[in-house]
């Protein structure tokens, strides 16, 4: 038999190796799953992981990589700050939706005015909207001790209802022949978030994601705030002793991750999505949780994990079109990734020994 022996510290090798092992295990299990469903496993895996980048249709799918990875990375880099501190914002999806609604509100209020300040004002509104939605669980935790996990998660469903209400009510396009949904911001130059370089998929959200990565890397490694965040996560009593006020950290982390999620929503509504619809939330906020953990809460890891997750989105769609794989393939893959990552994580904290 085998037994697990705790390690004194988590070796860097295993910290890097386990996400890779999780990806490989996901591919193998996914292949077996497809084989059981009667599909060719090798072709399926190739369609999901290879074809979007190098396949015959990659000219279309490659730009999509940045379109999908941008919001994932932007949201995940904010979530990672809180996760490091042991503050669990599970409701980034809701903050993403509210950020999009607030940003779109600015644009729709200004319509059809053309001015340079409109897009910056939308950015501010998106960030503030996400921040405010994130502050609700923060304040409830600080004042009443409510679990931020439950509150932030449940606020997602509130946000989804608000999005539906907006699409059917206040934000409905007056020239939209009574279809639900707001005006399309892509057709409103002052408010649109266009592709910056043709055929790359890069829009302002991608730039913001890169800035967020660099800033969070700097804060976590060089700034005392990052040290306090890590201390609060590793040893809460030591953090208090060092002068950290837990309430402030809760407000900061939930507010900041909410603001970044709100930004991601704003860039999405002004860019690829174009309008507020009943089903504006597309799951980026939840997938970003996987991205943050798969990336080991480290900026570089989050960059790679964000690209990989974006790949599963695109590859999943491609597999639906090309091979008629079920639509739930993507969720199954993303779920398996997190599952295997958490499973393999045992190897970073324990070593396996043969029982004598």
């Amino acid at each position, binding site marked *: 038999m085998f037994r697990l022996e705790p390690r004194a510290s988590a070796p860097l090798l295993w910290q890097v190796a386990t996400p890779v092992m999780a990806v490989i295990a996901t591919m193998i299990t996914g292949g077996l799953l497809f084989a059981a469903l009667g599909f060719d496993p090798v072709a399926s895996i190739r369609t999901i992981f290879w074809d979007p980048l190098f396949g015959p249709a990659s000219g279309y799918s490659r730009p999509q990589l940045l379109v999908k990875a941008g919001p994932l990375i932007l949201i995940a880099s904010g979530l990672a700050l809180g996760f490091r501190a042991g503050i669990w914002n599970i409701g980034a999806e809701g903050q993403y939706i509210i950020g999009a609604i607030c940003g779109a509100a600015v644009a729709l209020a200004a319509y059809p005015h053309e001015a340079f300040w409109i897009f910056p004002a939308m950015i501010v509104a998106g960030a503030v909207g996400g921040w405010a939605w994130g502050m609700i669980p923060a304040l409830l935790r600080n004042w009443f001790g409510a679990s931020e996990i439950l509150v932030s998660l449940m606020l997602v469903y509130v946000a989804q209802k608000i999005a539906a209400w907006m699409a059917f009510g206040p934000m409905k396009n007056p020239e939209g022949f009574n279809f639900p949904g707001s005006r399309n911001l892509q057709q409103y130059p002052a408010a649109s978030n266009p592709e910056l370089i043709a055929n790359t998929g890069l829009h302002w959200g991608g730039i913001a994601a890169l800035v967020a990565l660099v800033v969070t890397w700097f804060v976590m490694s060089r700034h005392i705030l990052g040290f306090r965040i890590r*201390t609060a996560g*590793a040893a809460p009593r*030591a953090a208090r002793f060092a002068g950290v006020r837990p309430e402030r950290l809760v407000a900061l982390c939930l507010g900041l991750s909410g603001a970044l999620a709100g930004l991601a929503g704003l860039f999405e509504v002004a860019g690829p999505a174009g309008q507020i619809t009943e089903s504006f939330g597309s799951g980026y906020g939840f997938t970003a949780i996987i991205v943050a953990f798969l990336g080991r809460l480290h900026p570089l890891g989050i960059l790679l994990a964000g690209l990989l997750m974006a790949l599963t989105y695109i590859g999943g769609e491609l597999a639906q079109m090309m091979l008629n794989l079920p639509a739930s393939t993507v969720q199954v893959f993303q779920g398996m990734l997190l599952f295997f990552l958490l499973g393999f994580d045992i190897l970073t904290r324990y070593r396996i020994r043969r029982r004598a």
Partner: protein
Amino acid sequence: MSDVFRAEGLGKTYPGVRANDDISFSVGAGEIHALLGENGAGKSTLVKMIYGLVRPDEGHMQLSGTPHAPADPRAARASGVAMVFQHFSLFDALTVAENIALGMENPPPRAELSRRIAELSQAYGLPLNPARRIASLSAGERQRVEILRCLLQNPRLLIMDEPTSVLTPQEAEILFATLRQLAAAGTAILYISHKLEEIRTHCDRATILRHGKVVGTVDPRAHSARELAAMMVGAEMKLVDRSGRKPGDVVLDVKALSTPAATEGVTLKNISLTLRTGEILGIGGVAGNGQDELLAALSGEITTPHGTVTLSSADLSALGPDPRRAAGLLSAPEDRLGHAAVPQFSLTENTLLTAGGRQDIVKRGLIDHNAARAFAESIIKAFDVRTPGPGTAAGALSGGNLQKFVIGREVLGGPKVLVVNQPTWGVDAGAAAAIRQALLDLAAKGAGVIVISQDLDELLELSDRFCALNEGRLSPPRPTEGLTIDEIGLMLGGAHGMEVGHVPA
């Protein structure tokens, strides 16, 4: 005197450590036999082998002439070995009788059990009401429950692991009277401690361990405490130097400090004290009487109403830990792992917990990692912290070395006032002497020092004045000069609850 227990050539190796090496000794019937050694000398490994928690790699044991090789603690108990652990394993919400029944293989009916508990507790002078809830018992009474639990098994060998660390001196006296009575009835007692005076007064023989080996078995009454310590440490102990201290002006003034009632922990009640420059104030008391809370109220983890904490005429009461450190009030909490230091972080990173501002490591929020490493290295050098380097995780250091690092971090911060809680708890004798000397040197240079400790010898050795902390209240200070252990015991609330109670039959 026939041998109840005998060990021959016991050895145990853990990865990288030879915990026990060729250990042979014996405990006779009716003998109180001390097992003496520093932390890490191999005492607990040895005891775990006797109690069946760990199996020896080589050697063998005998119990009353028959081979003793227990597969687990249950087998050890069945063959007549009982053990009272340092940390109690009792359920607060249950009564004494219920707790004892839980630990038995085949508990008799409750009434019968209560009767036997009452009989035994009368017979051995351990007053205890079987119907009382554990939550309402003092530490000394809880220990009695553990002892009674052992006595109900009629053990041939009773192992006691540092039993007096949670007791006041008067409670300890009662314990020793019980042990004497047990020994007189023929029970062999293996007594683990590093309190030398206690062993010299009460034990018949002492086996001294160092680095996993038996140094020798001696009659503790024939040796001085210094000689025993020298055998334990393997070198002459350095005497601490108390000279060169002159109390000056009042530097810290605590007035009517109270903390609001909390759901857990002790509330501080109307605590007042003054501390002068160059003075060491000792605060004694059994753990759990408000020590953690007092340190937190001084470090700034708990803030209190205006005018309660004043440092050199600056009111710090409402300020958090950072501004208090900036003002010169530094502190070192008891719990090294997770409070005074973050176990997963390197020593370099651990300097940032408290020294960021005072050592110019953090400027305008930016961390100077080189300065942090340099400061960690200077602590390692000045306090002889044994570690591969400043990049080592704090959790990988031994207790004594990490404690030297934690105390060193604050001492090198150049405090006006330093507050330490249990500065040498669980620290080997050599490191403890170094830490005490550092505190004395700091006071000699003009800082005020508050030492909160359970170790009365330590407090008498270090402090100029002594107060006792009991249930959140601080006694008026007394000069240490001329104070006896008995008087201190009474200050600590000493004999409260120690009279022989009425035990319903």
